[in-house]
């Protein structure tokens, strides 16, 4: 089975696989030490946190916290 992809936008997970882990790494000046950080892990943390928030909202319904 093959799923044809006719998305106008590429999927974010596929993009992050490539943009954060691929491409040429040159020691930029400002991000010299950021280059040592695992960008993928950071983004995964952000992604997972956002999924959790969505799930929590699903459980608790919409709350108006004013």
């Amino acid at each position, binding site marked *: 089975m093959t799923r044809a992809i006719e998305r106008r936008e590429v999927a974010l997970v596929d993009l992050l696989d490539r943009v954060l882990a691929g491409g040429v790494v040159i020691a*930029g000046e400002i991000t010299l030490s950021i280059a040592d950080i695992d960008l993928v892990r950071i983004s995964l943390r952000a992604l997972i946190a956002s999924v959790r928030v969505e799930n929590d909202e699903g459980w608790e319904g919409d709350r108006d916290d004013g």
Partner: protein
Amino acid sequence: MTDTLATWLYAVTAAPEDGTPPQGLTGVADEPVRLVEGAGLAAVVGSVPLADFDEDALRGHLEDLEWLERTARAHHRVINGAARHGQVIPLRFATLYHDDDRVRAMLRERREDFTDTLRRVAGRTEWGVKAYVDPRSFLPDPDESEDEGSPGTAYLMRRRAQRQDQETAHLRATERAEEIHSSLAALAVATAAHPPQDSALAAYEGWMVLNNSYLVPDDLTEDFTALVRALGERYPAVTLEVSGPWPPYSFTAPPKPAGDAQPEEKPS
């Protein structure tokens, strides 16, 4: 200060003959995209406010999914836009320099690397292929149930059998993925493996048994997509998903130490 700017790098290309930057492209800070030329190469860059993109700011932003998505898409959009004008080498997200002079110095320093890489990826395109399976399709046929002893023993036996079945299913699915990979790799000049994506993030059920990139010569593009379709038909228990064309993100990184996920180059 709000007017202190840094140079964000998107890609490196061969210097265009007319020196015109890609028209109408805006970057990660909505800034107009321009070219910094040097050593016969051109860096595709934009000026971004340092206040928003210095190390501390970036550290915070990277944990913010909305920022990350918007900025990653902008980075990709510029690279894609530049790729319409000629072969590009994408640069890793968040590569920043203090000013254009330093970018020119970097181009001079890395000229040979960049020129080699441009030559290596010319006329070739990155395609992504993912494979998903439903573990149930790979379970062994249910055996005759063995002699059951006491209810407790039977329970333990059942649990052990289930665990073994799962392992068998995983092994079978992985073997199938390897077959698919070797078929696809035969049409590619290089392949790169990405880690399987988290099922919640990528929104799939079952197992992702393949998440690879293939660097395919442009005259084989149709053969490659036809092969993916054919493999999908040959193995109905596997769902294949193609993405691309991508700029060569997965084939421009410098070699990493052995054992890491890295592009596998075939001798040409």
